[in-house]
């Protein structure tokens, strides 16, 4: 699903140029659950943003489902992202002025789905995330765990091929964090590819594979076999 070759990303300010990613080679297969780890500033989030087509690489190739993404314009990236990718953020990133239902409904509106289909899909996913009873609430009326469940509901409502999670449990206590990880695992088991950035060793063990980044380069990759023990 994801083929990355010799990918470079640098940021330039007036005085210095910082190399965030340096010759990264990575492939993620369909149905895989990959965790990207590494210390702060190693380039984890930059890599996730490029995989999520929110940012363009400076050099190298990135193919998503066979399409070269590297040189696409914003409009084209938006089109490719729509319905294919779902995002889950550490800080939930729900729109404060929209209700739970409306937040989850938003990606479907951009996909121009009709009202009844939207309603059906949103309610289904909210029920699945066990948050349907809060459909009319606003984000600030929910706990952190509930908000993240809503964020996951919004990420999966379009049934995307890939979910990108950026430290999804970073703002949650251990109980809520575990719930979120279980949800992601469930989704993965149903066939959704997941790429997750995390600091947490605990969370990384939910993944099939752990990719360790250091100073913008992949330093180790390891297969994970201890999932059952953690759950």
């Amino acid at each position, binding site marked *: 699903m994801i083929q990355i070759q010799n990918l470079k990303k640098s940021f330039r300010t007036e005085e210095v140029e910082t190399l965030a990613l340096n010759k990264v080679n990575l492939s993620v297969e369909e149905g895989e659950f990959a965790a990207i780890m590494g210390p702060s500033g190693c380039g984890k*989030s930059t890599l996730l*943003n490029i995989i*999520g087509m*929110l*940012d363009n690489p400076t050099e190298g190739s990135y193919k998503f489902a066979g399409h070269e993404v590297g040189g696409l314009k*914003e*409009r084209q990236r*938006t089109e490719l*992202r*729509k*319905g294919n990718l779902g*995002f889950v*953020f550490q*800080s939930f*990133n*729900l*729109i*404060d*002025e*929209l209700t739970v239902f*409306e937040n989850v409904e*938003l*990606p479907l*509106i*951009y*996909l121009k789905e009709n009202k009844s289909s939207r309603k059906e899909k949103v309610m289904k996913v909210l029920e699945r995330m066990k948050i349907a009873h809060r459909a009319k609430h606003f984000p600030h009326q929910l706990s952190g765990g509930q908000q993240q469940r809503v964020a996951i509901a*919004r990420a999966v409502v379009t049934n995307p091929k890939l979910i990108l999670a950026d430290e999804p449990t970073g703002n949650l206590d251990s109980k809520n964090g575990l719930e979120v990880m279980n949800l992601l695992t469930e989704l993965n088991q149903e066939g959704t590819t997941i790429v997750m950035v995390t600091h947490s060793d605990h969370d990384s063990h939910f993944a099939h594979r752990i990719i360790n980044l250091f100073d913008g380069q992949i330093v180790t990759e390891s297969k994970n076999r201890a999932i059952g023990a953690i759950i």
Partner: protein
Amino acid sequence: MFKNYLKIAWRNLIKNKVYSWINIGGLAIGIVACLLILQYVVFEFSYEDFHVKKERIYRVQQNRYDNGKLATQWAAGAYAVGNSFKEAIPEIEEYVKVVETGDIIVEVNNRPLKIKEVYFATNSFFDVFSYPLIYGDSKSVLNEPNTAAISETTAVKIFGTNDVVGKNLPISGNRTYKITGVFKDMPINTQLRPDFLASYATYVGMNTNEDGSSPEDAWAWDGCLTYLLLQRGADPTQVEAKFAPIVEEGVGELLKRFNASVEYRLQPLTNIHLDANYMMEPAPNSDGKTIYLLLGIAFFVIIIAWVNYINLATARAIGRAKEVGIRKTIGSKRTQLIIQFFFESVLFNGLALLLALLLMLIALPFFTKISGQPVSYDLFIDAKFWFGLTALFVSGVVLSGLYPAIVISRFRPVEVLKGQMGTTSQGALLRKGLVVFQFAASLFLLIGSLVVYQQIQFMRDQSLGIDIDRTLVIKPPIATDSTFTSQKLALKESLLKYPAVKKVAVSSIVPGEGPGDNAGGIRLLTQDDSEQKQYRFIYVDYDFLNLYDAELIAGRGFSEDFGAERVNVVFNRKGIEQLGFDDPEEAIGKQIDFWGEQCTIVGVIENFHQQSLREAYDPLILRLNPDVYGYFSVKMGAGQITQTIAQAQTEWNTFFPGNTFEYFFLDEKFNDQYKADHRFGQVFGVFTLLAIFVACLGLFGLASFTALQRKREIGIRKVLGASIPGILGLLYNEFALLLVIAFGIAIPIAAFTTSRWLQGYAFRIDMHWSYFVLPFLAIVLIALVTVSFQTIKAAMANPVKSLRTE
């Protein structure tokens, strides 16, 4: 999708109530201010607009030159102009002659009824102009002598009905008119608003001499308003160029003797109201400069409101950045975001529009009062009003909504979702630039208001050079006969018997109005014809100078002790200067030629303000005429005013039966001249305050966001030991610099504009540094208070809290 936009826009609006009120309130005030002024201006521009042939109608305006120098400018010209021009210039399709004449009295149910606004007009009047005739034939209504058309109201007043064509109407002066037409009452937005329009043929009949010379040939006799209707496609400049040889033939020889000349120019009918203030205007006009100034204020107010929206929307953009990031992440295109934020601008402007309509309903009576314009709620059924409203709405949406929409939609999700979003230096610079504009505009308006106020106060407070206090003026009787002089003297005697009446004088005019009489050809006997000049003159009786307490600077006033005073004259200082004397004493005893009579200068008085201080002193001659027909000035002592008026009326009815007793107090009447200035000052002042208020709203909002944005910085500074005054200084400094820049921009513009405006006044205030510094200090104070609300709160906040929430 739109439902979603509406939902989020509405919820944002509710969530940020202060911000929303600032924006909607500011925009609404801006719209109201703009609409009120626009409708005022539109009304002023609407003068003569209803005439179907307006594009082809011109007034013939006259300039008089003495010794090659422009001496006087006249709305009216020689009587021969109309027919002579038409005869010689084929581009002239038709002409209209209009001659203003005094009030008349008719008898209704045995009671005298005074009719004002009486004119003679040629038969072409209703054909060239579009004044609607209800009864009568527009082609022939004023063809015959002793016929007249009257207004509908006048017809109803006299006959009780408007269907009066064919009826005879005897008027004062033993003349009877046959009514040949009834016209609709004239609209307010026209200069000629007759109630009684007699045929010009009557006038010609009344003024044709035995030798056959008539006004039709009179080139040296003026006072006739002439309007020309040009042929379609005729070039007015070319027509104008053909005047000179005709005038030369008519009056050139005569004028050359006096080293004088006249020039006739065409003035478009629709320009008269805003562009003309000549002698013998049939009705006062407005000042075009003032109207343009008001238009400028209207735009300032609305632009300030739009700037608020732009400033606040872009400043608040940080708050909306996360939403933009999320929307982009989950599939929104940039164009969709532009539409979304543009839609919010539509919502804000739409709500502002509704509020503006509500405010209009409340403000209209108040505005009518201060502007003196006949505005009514009919405005709301006027298509032009709705057009203006729509134009303001659309302009508001586009001008205020587009830029923030583009800015906000430009945010990159990677940055905003990571919280790396800061203000762009470009956006901050624009906001600062816009704040500078608001400050500069407010400062400009405040300086303008102060100068206008000072000028009006100056005119009111300035000594007139004569005493007009406690002076009751009785208008002259209309129905009189050969006994007028004896009756007049008897009335004076009777009035003086009352203890409250101190002095009584009669004069052809009283202070407060332009001297209607102009005397050309005045020169010292020792001078030749080429040195003659034009003067204004007033006929007075023996008591005039004494009653008005005019200051004699040489010689003496008129007195019965000196016998044949009829050929003696008193000049004002400007008059003797024009005659060629620097020292008033030198002029005493000198003889002048006054229309063929030899008159002796017996006295010189100091210049006094015959009219408002807008007008320069005229060279003036006071000429004694014990038989003078005119106004009765009654100087009263203290107390018993009402009783004295009642007594005066009783006496009046005894000596001038059949004449209405009309009076006014001269100081009030004189101050009426400043009504237009006063109204302008009020309108200017009110809208300046509105502009400043709207600008303050924006400043308040902006200061709130600045304080919010710098919350973390303030927290860190306080932790590191910064004092509250130090923090305040930090926040104030940002605005202080902008104020100084605004001051630098506003001063030269305000200085230029106000001095141009003041040039319209012959007597004006001197520009003073305080007119600039005081408004600046006021704006600084207002800005300081406005900014302080949020700044002090931010400076005093507990840093632990602000740093934790970060």
